[in-house]
């Protein structure tokens, strides 16, 4: 923090680099400033620096002076996710047990479709010639039944180095019981090539099931060098420009970690950006008294939903990224291919489809006037009156309603034999149904009733669709943060330090040794605390423990929280955990089998260290009347009553306490809210729109 004066404000910055825009949020402890700059595809470092320059300019400082006034920068990054979509990661090699060279290619027999005979194999992250094996084997209890063939390990590593690998994944059977063979291979690799990036499966995911552990380890090995290079380059540039604070990276588990942790654990930041939105939505909703929410982020190509129960975003372990299994604990974000840019088309049996093919950022929807001729959800939203044809979109883009109408009429209206407006309605409804099915999947199919949750909508068009979806699912409330368009960056500002560890321990419940369980959990907690201390000086520390449990013979576990007030689990805690397992099982699958043999498969420990809270403005309530923000009326479509005149409001002029009855449309800086007839919107004291839906 050289060169700064003590009376100057100190900033914490959240930055989320997305595909089209880089969003930023700055907090100086008293106020929050937000904005966005266009992203530089393929050059996240420059995007970050341009965001910082924009922030500096807003604060009346040049970049180097502004950088000296920053305490910490928290990044949401798409480097890892893009690496897994573009397949441009590091040249990676693998060392596995003899006979297990092809586990990654066999992928437990999984194919994404049984009837799509044209479906090709996934892109190989490691070609077969770089997948090598060594002798040596442990059994399921960790007993060495064949010693590690160290000379073979040397030979294989030498071969891989000769082949030019930059990164090495090592995954041996039962390394989650005893990592010694993997560690020995890492030591040999370090001797032979100190610069080689090595990912051990026993470090990345010490969990039973070799394919899931291997795939996760390979994704880590493949993506980490690129993330490392990006973070090191960025940190160097920032330091050169005078930055003396801490650089942190948002993780897929909803926490943040420092650069030294992040650059070795690429797989942990695969959903870095999306998790920021969930964290922010959770915090903002909680401040206004909503702890049970479903977050819905509608972007250009996708719609991401996540369920938050009792203030805790749910964690999932079932994700596939780039057709590779990623089994580290991630926020349980479910994605469907329905976004603003999703293309609508009619098949030869007159069936209307929306997505998953997208018009992408370029050329984008037909109404962008950049050469796109096929209709998208955004085009339908324009024709239906939700988007103001005279108001530039984010980034200053103007829209061409005539082009939108032409595209919809040509590709949908004529094919279905309906008017352009009816065709737009049809596109809107089909897109909504796909999004509502995603909301059902994340709630109903996991034993939750959506009626118990509020829907938090964000992303550019999320709040256009939210009230219709909420009504369909009988949800009573829609929440839209005023910062909806920069929510991931806001989340980066709000997230705490967090380490999520998992360790397999396959044991029948009746044979569970409480002392052994406590010993292992404390060991994991110690490891997590050590990792956290490497970051900023942590604040209050919270520890959460879970057991993965199942009835004997099942293949899938239920993650059960262990409620304990102390560092140790007591017999009473354990009894309660078993009861909770039966109840959770019943909630998920409509039955339980108390008395049936139960197993523990894995232990989970999350250690969370609080970061200083971002400033949350609390504004006093103004008058109920929103009249000063009323800027006109426009014809718009509503399911209840068809096209009708709606009140239009400039959201930036609305005051907390203003009450807006539907039909109404509120234009915020980069977001639009649609309030249907019979619904009411109110801006609350935390800059959160609350839309009440009569169900």
């Amino acid at each position: 923090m050289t060169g700064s004066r003590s009376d100057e404000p100190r900033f914490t910055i959240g930055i989320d680099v997305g595909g089209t825009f880089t969003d930023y949020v700055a907090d100086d402890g008293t106020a929050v400033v937000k904005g966005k700059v266009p992203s530089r595809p393929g050059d996240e470092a420059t995007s970050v620096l341009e965001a910082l320059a924009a922030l500096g300019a807003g604060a009346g400082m040049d970049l180097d002076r502004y950088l000296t006034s920053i305490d910490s920068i928290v990044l949401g990054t798409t480097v890892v996710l893009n690496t897994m979509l573009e397949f441009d990661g590091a040249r990676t090699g693998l060392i596995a047990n003899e006979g297990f060279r092809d586990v990654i290619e066999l992928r437990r027999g999984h194919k994404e479709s049984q009837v799509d005979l044209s479906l090709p194999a996934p892109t190989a992250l490691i070609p077969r010639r770089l997948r090598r094996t060594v002798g040596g084997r442990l059994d399921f209890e960790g007993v060495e039944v064949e010693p590690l063939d160290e000379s073979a390990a040397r030979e294989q590593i030498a071969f891989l180095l000769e082949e030019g690998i930059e990164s090495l994944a090592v995954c041996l059977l039962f390394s989650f019981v005893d990592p010694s063979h993997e560690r020995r291979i890492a030591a040999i690799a370090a001797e032979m090539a100190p610069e080689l990036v090595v990912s051990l499966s026993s470090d990345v995911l010490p969990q039973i099931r070799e394919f899931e552990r291997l795939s996760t380890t390979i994704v880590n090995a493949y993506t980490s060098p690129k993330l490392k290079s990006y973070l090191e380059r960025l940190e160097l540039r920032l330091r050169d420009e005078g930055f003396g604070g801490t650089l942190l990276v948002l993780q897929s588990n909803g926490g943040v970690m420092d650069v030294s942790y992040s650059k070795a654990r690429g797989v942990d930041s695969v959903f870095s950006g999306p998790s920021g939105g969930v964290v922010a939505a959770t915090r903002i909703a909680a401040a206004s008294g909503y702890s049970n929410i479903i977050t819905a982020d509608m972007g250009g190509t996708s719609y991401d939903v996540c369920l938050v129960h009792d203030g805790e975003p749910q964690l999932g372990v079932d994700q596939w990224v780039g057709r590779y299994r990623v089994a580290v604990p991630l926020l349980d974000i479910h994605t469907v291919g329905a976004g603003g840019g999703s293309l609508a088309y009619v098949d030869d049996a007159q069936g209307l489809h929306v997505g998953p093919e997208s018009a992408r950022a370029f050329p984008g929807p037909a109404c962008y006037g950049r050469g796109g001729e096929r209709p998208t959800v955004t085009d339908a939203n324009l024709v239906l009156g939700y988007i103001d044809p005279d108001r530039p979109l984010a980034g200053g883009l103007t829209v061409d309603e005539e082009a939108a109408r032409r595209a919809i009429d040509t590709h949908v209206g004529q094919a279905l034999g309906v008017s352009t407006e009816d065709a737009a309605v049809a596109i809107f409804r089909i897109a909504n149904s796909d999004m509502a099915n995603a909301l059902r999947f994340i709630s109903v199919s996991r034993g939750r009733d959506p009626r118990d949750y509020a829907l938090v909508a964000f992303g550019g068009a999320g709040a256009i669709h939210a009230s219709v979806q909420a009504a369909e699912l009988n949800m009573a409330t829609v929440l839209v943060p005023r910062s909806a368009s920069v929510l991931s960056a806001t989340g980066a500002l709000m997230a705490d330090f967090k380490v999520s560890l998992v360790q397999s321990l396959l044991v029948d419940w009746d044979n569970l040794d409480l002392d052994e369980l406590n010993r292992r959990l404390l060991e994991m907690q110690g490891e997590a605390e050590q990792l956290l201390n490497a970051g900023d000086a942590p604040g209050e520390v919270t520890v959460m423990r879970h057991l993965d449990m199942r009835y004997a013979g099942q293949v899938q576990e239920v993650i059960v929280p262990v409620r304990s007030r102390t560092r140790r689990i007591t017999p009473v805690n354990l009894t309660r955990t078993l009861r909770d397992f039966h109840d959770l099982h019943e909630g998920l699958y409509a039955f339980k089998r108390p008395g049936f043999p139960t197993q523990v498969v894995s232990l989970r420990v999350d250690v969370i260290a609080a970061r200083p809270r971002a400033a949350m403005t609390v504004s006093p309530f103004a008058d109920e009347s929103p009249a000063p923000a009323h800027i006109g009326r426009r014809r718009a479509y509503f399911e209840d009553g068809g096209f009708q005149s709606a009140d239009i409001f400039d959201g930036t002029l609305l005051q907390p306490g203003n009450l807006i009855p539907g039909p109404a449309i509120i234009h915020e800086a980069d977001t639009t809210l649609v309030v249907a007839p019979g619904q009411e919107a109110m801006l609350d004291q935390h800059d959160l729109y609350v839309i009440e839906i009569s169900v």
Partner: protein
Amino acid sequence: MTNADSIGLEILRRRFEALAAELGAVVGKLARSNGIRENRAFSVAILDQDGGVVAIDNPLHLGLMAGGARCALDRFRYDTREGDVILLGDAHEGGSRSQDLMLIVPITVAGSTVLQIAARAEMPDLGGDVIGSVNPAAREVWAEGVPVPPVKLWREGHQVRDIQASLLMNTRFPAEVEGNLEALLAAIRLGTRRMLAMAADHGVETVLAAAGHAQDYAERRGRALLLRWGKGTATVRGGSGSAGVAGAEPSVVATVELDEGSVSVDLRESGPAVSSALNASLTTTHAAIATAVSAALGPEVPVNGGLLRLIDLRTTAGTVVDAGFPSAVSCGHVYLTALIVELVGAALAELTKAGTGAPARESSIVVITPEKVGEPPPVDLAPFAIAGCAGAEGRDGWGAPHVFSRSLLPSAEEWEGQMAIVVRGMELRCDSAGPGRWRGAPGLTVELGLRGGSQVTSLLFGDEMTLEDPPADRCPERAGAGRERRLRLLYKGGSGYGDPQGRDRAAVLADVRDGLVSIEQARSAYGLQDEEVGP
């Protein structure tokens, strides 16, 4: 779809599909036996009042569901009430083989059945001469299990205990069968709850209209594609000598005709039913044809009763593809399903010039059965057969044929901890992939260590198997575990597509470097020249 109302029906059609997938996932997670958890030999479907399949989670079972539903309807058309659960398990009455059970439950509103939910799954054993009910030597259906004609397992919300007791009495693994039925019922109850909520939200009439729309749409979509392919006829024939079953060589002859938007499959020239378990029930054959047609039409045509309307199937009773009561069918269900899908799929590929290659290949049957009752249930090794996918225009073969890729290979680590089977390795085999411009999927070597006295039942079609003690110096022994016998399976690869000489040279060289193609085969099959090989 021509107006806004039909959009509403389309939205409900998608809800049906999402629900069927969700319910299928529930069965997979909850079931007790490995045939369901890993082989994933199960399905859940939403049916209309007439047994038409509205949505199903497993395309392989479309014809099986329709057959079972038709049979249940014939038996109980005027005798179905709220709370009834109908059980079926007779290969020759709407079924496939004795060990596959199906449950059908009516969804009633105000006392009338509006829709039905059905679930079916493979059980680990339902009696017969051998443990596991897979009996290659069986000559009659009783030697491979106890047929269960349509009966009520629950009547108006009350379990019919004598039926349940009788069923569990006739299996060597009652706990597993009971657990599996519990899983099927859990999914059905969940589905019923969801469907009733849908009916309450949208009205019964709308939901029924949507069930009709779903099937009409699939039919329209499929017909449009078939019309685009025009007319044509192709005849294909196949069958196989199988290791270990004398005098039992099934012969299948299929004449496939595309005409005016429909597919006619004539199997009447097929050979007579054989005196072994290598026969198929008519329901099995119908399901295989539906699978082949669905694969030819591709993912754009929903898999439901509408697709079945496109198919005209002709068979002669008493032939191997329509073997009547009391023919044995426990192995034919697996073998002939694959063979018919392969033959009919190949004929359709030829007629449509779709370049999809063969959608299936013959499937070997390898089951590890316990020495005696009281030991863990049989283990079907079908999920290990991750090989056999043919090459197709634009892609090499990979893994198992797509239509049979539903199985989930067990985790070697979980198996070793929980079963008397140790996975010693499974690797792709050099030169096992059929050459082609787009080569087939490589074959696979699987090595398993067997402990204890388990038996291996096998019926091999083109694959190889050995079972032997390992060399003493390579035999890892553990106290009490005894010596491991080594089971070695060599699964053959998939066939190639197109002229191998036209294969991209870089792809040939990559296969050589990856150890999938030897330099000798690269020269002989792909015409690789020495100067192309490089240093």
